[in-house]
């Protein structure tokens, strides 16, 4: 049965805070390294985007495990499960592409490509949600 959601919500908040700490910590360390003259500005932007992409991919990876209100009927449960799964896959892959582009692609391609990847994942998720909701209610 659905257990008490409080510990789960607390765990999820701690996980999100850990990821935020990693992202902010990496940005601060990279800025410090740049000020010390150890790395150039280009490297700061690239490394920061790689950390950002990986952290958001890690967050998207666990979307299906995140707490949501208990379903009231089978239709709602089916829709929620399907949408969360597609959303999670789309966002995780998009942010992995984001990180990979910033790691290996030329800057201009990385800049546009990373935004296209995330934009496509949002379009896929929204499109799938609408399609699934329409097809399920049409039955």
């Amino acid at each position: 049965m659905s257990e008490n959601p409080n510990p789960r919500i607390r765990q999820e908040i701690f996980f999100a805070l850990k990821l935020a700490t990693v992202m902010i910590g990496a940005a601060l360390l990279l800025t410090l390294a740049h000020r010390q003259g150890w790395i150039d500005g280009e490297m700061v932007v690239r490394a920061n985007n790689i950390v950002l992409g990986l952290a958001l991919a890690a967050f998207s990876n666990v979307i299906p495990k995140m707490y949501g209100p208990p379903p009231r009927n089978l239709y709602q449960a089916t829709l929620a499960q399907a949408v969360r799964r597609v959303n999670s896959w789309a966002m995780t892959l998009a942010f992995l592409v984001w990180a990979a582009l910033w790691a290996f692609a030329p800057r201009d391609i990385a800049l546009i490509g990373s935004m296209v990847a995330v934009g496509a994942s949002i379009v896929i998720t929204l499109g799938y949600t609408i399609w699934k909701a329409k097809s399920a209610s049409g039955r």
Partner: protein
Amino acid sequence: MNSVFKALADPTRRKVLELLRQRPMTAGELSDHFPVSRPTMSAHFAVLREADLIEANKIGTTILYQLKLSVLEDALLGFTQLFGIGAEQTREGADE
């Protein structure tokens, strides 16, 4: 992570996850797909719940099982299905 590998190592539990990929199902609906007793199925559900791969929600008087696989676990399940890990075990079990 150990509990996840333990849960995915068994072909029956993998089949349960495969079925739940299609849609959430009740314990009865899931059990109908397997030639094993209800207590055995309950034990499988318990292992999957302990590994946080499925979730049980009560809707009215029925308990509905839902999938809770992260992308990584979903990919892992796909790989184990692809390479048929534990399939021999199932075949031997069916032959007996």
